[in-house]
């Protein structure tokens, strides 16, 4: 869950008032009758609740749903259907295809994959070994040169 930023943190949470407002909003959007429980609030909160509930009434009346143009809704539906019919073959899920493969194909694919990986690893290790050998040979040559110079 996301945390509130500092300025969003409620200074003094008033759960009873929050619950009352939430219940009233639920009643407003469902059209159900709302039995308020103002007496359960502290006297100081009753006035605040009163004006906030009025404001919620105004919001409920003012923010009326709009209806999209039916032509737009139908056109978009047709576009989506057309997109689905053209995009389907290209969007085949690889994982889905793998799951649907027969078992022997999966085993063969795994063996093939392992063989290829082992071959590549062998090639790489040979290159590394050759490089190491060359390096050691060069070091020995340099040591020999130094000992000859010291003797001279």
């Amino acid at each position, binding site marked *: 869950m996301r945390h509130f930023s500092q300025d969003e943190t409620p200074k003094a949470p008033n759960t009873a008032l929050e619950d009352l407002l939430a219940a009233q909003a639920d009643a407003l959007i469902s059209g159900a009758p709302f039995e308020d429980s103002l007496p359960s609030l502290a006297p100081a909160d009753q006035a605040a609740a009163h004006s906030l509930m009025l404001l919620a009434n105004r919001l409920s009346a003012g923010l009326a749903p709009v209806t*999209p143009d039916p032509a737009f809704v139908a056109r978009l539906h047709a576009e989506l259907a057309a997109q689905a019919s053209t995009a389907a073959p290209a969007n085949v899920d690889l994982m889905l295809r793998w799951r649907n493969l027969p078992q022997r194909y999966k085993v063969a694919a795994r063996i093939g994959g392992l063989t290829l990986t082992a071959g590549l690893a062998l090639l790489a290790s040979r290159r590394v070994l050759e490089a190491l050998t060359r390096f050691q040979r060069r070091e020995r040559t340099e040591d020999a040169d130094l000992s000859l110079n010291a003797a001279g």
Partner: protein
Amino acid sequence: MTVPNAEEWAALEDATLVEQARTDQAAFGALYERYVQKVYNYIYYRTGSHEDAEDLTARVFHRAMAHIKGYVERGVPFQAWLYRIAHNLVANWHRDRSRHKVVPLDEYVAARLRSEAPESSAESQDEIERLTQAVRALPEERQQLLILKFVDRLSNQEIGVIMDRSEGAIKSLYHRTLLALREMLGGGEEQPEADESTGMPRSEKRR
């Protein structure tokens, strides 16, 4: 095995439809029919323009369809996933514009008249304009909360999943949002139609 018709698709739960939608476009079509209006409403209220709402709604569903094979629920239901795509696209849309766009009054009022019966309207056009402008001046996440709650009529639990917060945090944010909005509107200057028995505003069916 028979192919379900539109009504049978519509009766299925989201999770079943999502599973089917990976291979069957008709199932995605049913999800589209279920959510297109909600997504459109959300984007419309965040952008203030029907043109942009159409453009971004189309992008939301194209993106959802392109990625539905890779979608795994993991605590984020399809609806929340869709709203998160919409939210990200709207955020990019706002980033691409240097200034915050305000809903044009004539367009807003026309939309409202389209969606609401005249006799149920208790608010004057001026008041609606003032209220809408105040909502749109709120920080992004507070706007998001109010739109999801009052326009798309989602529960706190559903909003919490979309905004990646607990239900308690959403209640708290709603409370603070109302306080901020009341402050912006200049306090409770308007008196309610009071219930005679309690002295409190009557709850009423608005839509």
